């Protein structure tokens, strides 16, 4: 029955776009390294609109054909060759990256602009790494071969780790080193799982593997190793220790990339493993265990965020909490077939959470960065009066926070409402309690910041540096996207299911 549903191992029309999505930023990186210095910024600015156009073309291609786009590299068919494949899930993430990277790039021009006279190494490095992160993200979202995905996620680590320590201070260097060690340990486990799967089933192509994999100890061990490794990379509790110092220590545009996009890549691979590669292998107990970790992350991360004294650390701990929401997808849809309405709504809600958190968190880190630039510090106790001095910035922060706590009409609201519906519908009400309490705690830490920033200052506030209106408006625009996502949940949910029934049919067989 399922053999008819397998995507034929050939390049589809428009499949070359997938390769361009990876090659274009890589070409930008190579050119930046070659020409160096002040050219890095210009190259990045030129590459960005083309990258966005490619992402739009891929989305349109998948949307219109209602099927996956595929490119078989060198016409070598899997299992020997390596394929790139774009299904609905990939498209949602590729599009998110394609909108966020240019927005963050424009935002960063105020901070890392390289005027001809003064060349700064941090600036050149930032622009080169930004393109490298983009290329790696696209490779992760479009890869269809588990080993290729290993290379992509390592590429992502190598691009993301130096972003943490751009300023070269000792504490950010330490944070970067810890991030790297966590990440390397995670990828070794992922690699170990990959070789076990290859040894047992003789292929690493996701679709072929899905048709061959059985419920046996090898698949179990491989799935556990790979999931564990990816959890370390996506900083799910209790492997989150590296995240707050790394994300809070990085310059604001880098934090926005790391917190908004980079941690989503390992999460994306967990979804691929659990729902595309081994839909039949993962069982209820394992899914519930992952759910317990996710719930602990939501509660623990939110409580710690409430206790932070510095704005950027607060936002970073809130990332720890929001990552927890993403992993609630697993217990809420592991046992449902994809046609099942409740599993479906957890699936759509979780993906909407991933996308809206990306925009909301990027906006909040941008706002926090602007506040820190204006005040020269980011102590929450010293924020009084900033709401009046930088109203657009604080409004952007509030809108981002609105999505985090799940107030209507934001994307975060629809996402959390869908997770709640799924939890109640699946009879797993305990996850609903976690979603609600997490929302309340998020409300608490966002309100804490807003209340301080709207308070009257004891002495008139003097800004250390003027903050350009254009950068404030960019943060606001990104926050608005997070809110507007709440108005468009139904059509994209169909998009997310493109390319999914095949895998589901294979898993059910």
């Amino acid at each position, binding site marked *: 029955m399922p053999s008819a549903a397998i995507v034929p191992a050939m390049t589809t029309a428009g499949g070359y776009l997938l390769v361009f999505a990876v090659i274009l930023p890589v070409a930008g990186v190579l050119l930046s390294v070659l020409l160096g210095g002040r050219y890095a910024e210009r190259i990045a600015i030129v590459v960005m609109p083309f990258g966005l156009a490619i992402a739009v073309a891929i989305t349109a291609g998948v949307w219109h054909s209602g099927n996956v786009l595929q490119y078989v590299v060198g016409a070598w068919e899997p299992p020997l060759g390596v394929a790139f494949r774009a299904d609905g899930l990939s498209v949602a993430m590729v599009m998110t990256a394609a909108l966020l990277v240019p927005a963050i790039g424009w935002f960063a021009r105020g901070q890392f602009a390289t005027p001809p006279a003064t060349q700064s190494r941090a600036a050149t490095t930032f622009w080169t790494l930004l393109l490298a992160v983009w290329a790696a993200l696209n490779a992760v979202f479009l890869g269809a071969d588990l080993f290729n995905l290993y290379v992509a996620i390592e590429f992502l680590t190598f691009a993301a780790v130096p972003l943490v320590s751009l300023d070269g201070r000792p504490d950010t260097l330490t944070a970067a080193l810890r991030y790297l060690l966590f990440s390397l340990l995670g990828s070794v486990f992922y690699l170990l799982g990959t*070789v076990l799967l290859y*040894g047992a089933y003789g292929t690493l192509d996701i679709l072929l593997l899905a048709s061959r994999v059985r419920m046996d100890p090898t698949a179990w061990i491989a799935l556990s190793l790979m999931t564990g490794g990816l959890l370390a990379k996506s900083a799910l509790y209790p492997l989150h220790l590296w995240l707050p110092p790394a994300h809070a220590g990085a310059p604001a545009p880098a934090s926005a990339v790391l917190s908004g996009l980079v941690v989503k890549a390992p999460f994306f691979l967990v979804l691929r493993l659990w729902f595309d590669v081994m839909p039949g292998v993962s069982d209820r107990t394992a899914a519930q265990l992952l759910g317990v970790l996710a719930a602990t992350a939501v509660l623990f991360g939110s409580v710690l965020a409430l206790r932070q004294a510095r704005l950027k650390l607060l936002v970073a701990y809130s990332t720890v909490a929001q990552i927890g929401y993403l992993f609630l997808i697993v217990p809420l849809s592991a046992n449902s077939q994809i046609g099942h309405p409740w599993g479906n709504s957890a699936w759509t809600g979780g993906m909407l959470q991933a996308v809206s958190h990306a925009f909301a968190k990027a906006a909040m880190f941008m706002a926090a960065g602007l506040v820190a630039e204006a005040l020269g510090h980011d102590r929450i106790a010293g924020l009084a009066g900033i709401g009046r001095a930088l109203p657009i910035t604080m409004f952007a922060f509030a809108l981002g926070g609105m999505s985090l706590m799940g107030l209507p009409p934001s994307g975060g609201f629809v996402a959390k409402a869908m997770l709640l519906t799924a939890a109640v519908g699946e009879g797993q009400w305990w996850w609903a309690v976690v979603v609600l309490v997490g929302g309340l705690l998020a409300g608490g830490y966002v309100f804490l910041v807003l209340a301080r920033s709207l308070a009257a200052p004891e002495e008139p506030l003097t800004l250390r540096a003027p903050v350009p209106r254009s950068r404030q408006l960019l943060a606001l625009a990104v926050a608005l996207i997070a809110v507007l996502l709440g108005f468009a949940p139904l059509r994209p949910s169909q998009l997310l299911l493109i390319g999914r029934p095949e895998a589901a049919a294979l898993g059910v067989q």
Partner: protein
Amino acid sequence: MSAATVFGLCAAALVGLGLFGVLVDPHPLRKIVAFNLLGGGVFLIFGITARRGAAAGFASDPVPQALVITGIVVAFAATALAAALVLRLVDETGRVTLRSAGSGGGPSNDAHS
């Protein structure tokens, strides 16, 4: 005991030693060396997997060998990046430790770092 079993046990021992070093040793440079030991163990498993092809009449399966070469390159790049970070850390502080970012403590340490 067949060759594959001997190599498998060696790989397991390497992975165990490496994992112990990465998790327990406080010195970043030794952590990096331990990570390479761990990686070596995993690469050895690739080598054992390549012998699967031998059963089908081939001398060995070429795919895991191709993969392991890529893996070695990636591990080399990772080691270089980690070593560069450690070097920079020594330049800045004159000491090599991960303690300052609150590795020994909980969240309250992070808040003050």
